[in-house]
Structure formats: C-alpha cells, structure tokens
C-alpha cells in the first residue's frame, strides 16, 4: 500500500504540493489526474525517494520513504518499477541492456535474465528489438521499452509518469493496453500520473484529481465521470473557461 500523508513540497518560493493525502490500495491502478505543472510527477518521485517532502510523509508498505537509510531505500526501490515520462533509457545501451540493467542487481542467472527480458519485451510487443539503441526507436517504442524495463523486475508496484504524453492517439491506446495488461498478467499495483483523461478512464480503477497541490476529489471512474465538482468537471470536459470561475460557482463545496 502506498500512502501520501499530508505531503508538502515547494521549490524555492513556489509551493507544489500542499498537504497531499491519498491512499493507493494493493492491486488497484490509481490514476492521479491534474493540469500540467500541478505536481503529479513531483508526487510520484516522493514514492521512490527521488524527492523528499518538506513536511508530511510518503509511506510504502509501512515504511516512511524519506526516513529510510540507503540500504533500505535500495531494497524498497527493488520492489518498485518506475516508467519515466520520456522513458529515460540509457542511450549508450541497447534495448536488451536497458531491460537487463535492473535485473543484473538481483543475482539472477543468465538463463533467468534471458527469460525475463524475452517475456517483458514480448509483453510490450517489442520482441526482436533487443539490439536496437534508444536513438533508433520512436517515442512510443521508447516508452514501451521503459515499461518492459519496469515489468521485467516483476515489481510489486509500477509508477507511470505521464505514459501517454506526446504520443498519437493510437500509440497512446497501445500504451494504455499495456498498463492494463501489466496489471492483469502480473497483478501489479499501479500509480499513473497523467492529464490524458481518456487514458485515465481506460487504465484507472480509481482516479484522484490533484489540484493546487492537494487532492480535489478521488473516486472510481464512474464517480469521477458523474462528479458535480466544477473544477473536476471542467478538467474532464476540457472546457477552456477559467478555473477560478468554476471554483467560484462551486461556492464552498468540498471535494
């Protein structure tokens, strides 16, 4: 279980997270939805200790992430797969080497590594691309390799940072399908941060709307689709009117 408990984070004078509180249950895929620059990726980075909260805490499997020493943090990271927004593949390595990178730390023998690499690349429909370099791949293919790299670890959790951003609708749908497939096949708990509402509906069991550094509303896909919260409605309908107008109209109603 992943828990954000009243997390605050600012960069200089700019507050990004303002008391973020959210629970991600085991086995579910939680989508954190929000505007660009609303702090979704910042929230995600707290889960693996890439960022530390100014106040509050992120708890994974009962462990407060920012209080872990290096050894225990490494052990925690070994249970989490992270899919970066732009894949973050090591560009000096081939696809295979990128996928092997995380496995090499796990004391697996060569046969087992080969098996896992083959399995992960097949799952993302990239079998046969083992020897290609990231520079030779399209954006969508790179993201699929990023997903394969995470899946190959057979993690307990996978965190997806804007998995469909910058992709065409068809490739986005392919990525969405992979996220669903990863949950079904390996039973992984997922956290997906995105501003792509169609993707959120496809992959999410629950959706949390992050707005001004805190969770505005959290609910199932159906609950979010039927929400009366004007801020959430405006976002999911993609209406261009000012957010503050919607908030004023809502006049005091909570998430």
């Amino acid at each position, binding site marked *: 279980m992943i828990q954000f408990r009243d997390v605050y984070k600012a960069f200089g004078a700019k507050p990004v997270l303002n008391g973020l509180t959210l629970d991600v249950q085991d086995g579910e895929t939680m989508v954190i939805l929000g505007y660009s620059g609303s702090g979704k990726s910042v929230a995600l*980075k707290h889960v693996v200790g890439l960022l530390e909260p100014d106040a509050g805490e992120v708890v994974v499997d009962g462990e407060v992430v920012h209080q872990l020493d290096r050894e225990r943090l490494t052990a925690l*990271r070994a249970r989490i797969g992270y899919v970066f927004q*732009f894949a*973050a593949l090591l560009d000096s390595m081939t696809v295979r080497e990128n996928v092997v990178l*995380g496995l090499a*730390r796990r004391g697996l023998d060569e046969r087992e590594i080969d098996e896992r690499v083959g399995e992960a690349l097949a799952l993302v429909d990239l079998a046969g691309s083992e020897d290609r370099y990231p520079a030779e791949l399209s954006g969508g293919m790179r993201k699929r390799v990023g997903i394969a*790299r995470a899946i190959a670890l057979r993690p307990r959790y996978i965190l997806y940072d804007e998995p469909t951003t910058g992709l065409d609708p068809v490739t986005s749908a392919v990525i969405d399908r992979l996220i669903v497939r990863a949950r079904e096949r390996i039973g992984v708990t997922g956290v997906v941060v995105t501003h792509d509402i169609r993707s959120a509906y496809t992959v999410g069991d629950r959706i949390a709307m992050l707005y001004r550094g805190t969770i505005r509303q959290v609910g199932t896909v159906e609950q979010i689709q039927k929400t009366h919260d004007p801020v959430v409605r405006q976002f999911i309908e993609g209406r261009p009117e000012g957010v503050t107008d919607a908030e004023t109209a809502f006049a005091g109603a909570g998430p």
Partner: protein
Amino acid sequence: MLELVTARVRGGLVALGRVGQFLSDVVRALRDTETWTGLTLVQMRRIGAASLPIALFIAAFTGIVLALQASYTFTGAVPLYFVGTLVGKTIMLELGPVLTGLALAGRVGANIAAELGTMRVTEQVDALETLAYDPVSYLVVPRVLAATVMFPFVVALAAVMGVTSGWLTAVNLLDLSTVEFVRGLKLFYQFKDIWFGLVKSMSFGLLIALIGCMKGLSVSRGAEAVGRATTDAVVLSAMMILVLDAFWAVVLL
C-alpha cells in the same frame, strides 16, 4: 552591504558543504565494487586510450619547439648538448603533465560533464536510482578511478614522444649529434623527474574527473545548464591544474 557579504559567505559555505558531501559519497561508493569494477575498464579505454592521440600530438610539437628555442637561447653562451637537458627536464617535470592535463581537462572533463549533465536532464540518473543503483558507484567512481590510473600512462607516453621529437629536431635541424643530445639528457637526470611528473598527472586525472562528475551531476535542467556545466568544468579544472602544479612544486621539489 552586510546582507550581501552574509549571503556570499553562506553561499560559499553551502558550496563547500556540497563538495564535502560529494567527496564523502565517492569514498562511500568505493565499497560498491560489484557496480564499478567492470565499468572502470570501459572508462579506462575511453579516458585513457582515446586521449592518446591528442596528448601525443601536443607532446610532439612541444618537443620540437623546446629544442629549437633552447638552441636559440644557448647560442654561443651554453654548450649545445644542454638542449637535451632542457628538453628532458622540461618535458618530464612540467610541460608533459601540465600541457597534457590542460588538454585533457578540455577533452575528458568536458566530456564527463556533458555526458552526466545530459543524463541528469533526461532523467537517466534518476532511472539508475530507481533501478537500485547508486549513481555515484555507477557513474562517478569508474570515471574517477579510470582518469587517476590512466593519466600517468598517457603523460608518460606523451613525455616519451616529446623527448623523441626534441631529439629528432636536435639531430636533424640543429648541429647536434645523438650522443651529445643523450649526454645532455642524462646530465642532471634523477629518477624523481619521472615520478614527480607521474604523481602530478595522477592528481590532475583525479581532479579533472571529480570536477567533471560533480559539475555534470549538479545540472538541474535544460541544454543551457549542460553547456554551462561543461564550460565550468573545463575552466575550473584548468585553474585547479595550475594551482595543483604549484602545490606539488612547493611540496615535492
């Protein structure tokens, strides 16, 4: 005014603290031999072998110029075989390590800072962390060890090249025989001439790699920041090489 001074002092202390933290991270990461052993060999090839052409090129022309300038300076007053002495001493003690160090500050230091800076802005460093690697063990230690080990080899070969080109110049362009050149070369030779140059070059390698890694990993975001880190790495390395050169002269000579 007081506020400005306070801010400057605080900024200086913070920077010093970062350097201290970085160095302690490097020392800690040395224990993670499983990660850096194989990678160090790769870096030794990239930093050492690949730097040889530029180092040899510089040394060859330095040897030529030294021989000709010595001959020009000595004319009539000092026996010409001292050309060998000057070429040998200058190349081994000073110009071999320092010129090679300055050239490699550009080649190796800039390369490390740009590579690590790009990895930082494209989240490759974060990716390593999430894959349970310590970026210092994976990226910094192999480069620092490789530079520290390989610089003396590169400088030694550069020194051989410099002395050889000085000898060839003396024999072909000056009125000097091989026997006379070698006599001059051996005249004030001490074994210290060799190890002094190698110790210096080892320290230059260590310094250039540390500065390149630190500047590269401290990049926050964007191509501009990578460019700035690269320039800073080269400038700071060049300055520190000269400071370190003076330090070794005071301590060891």
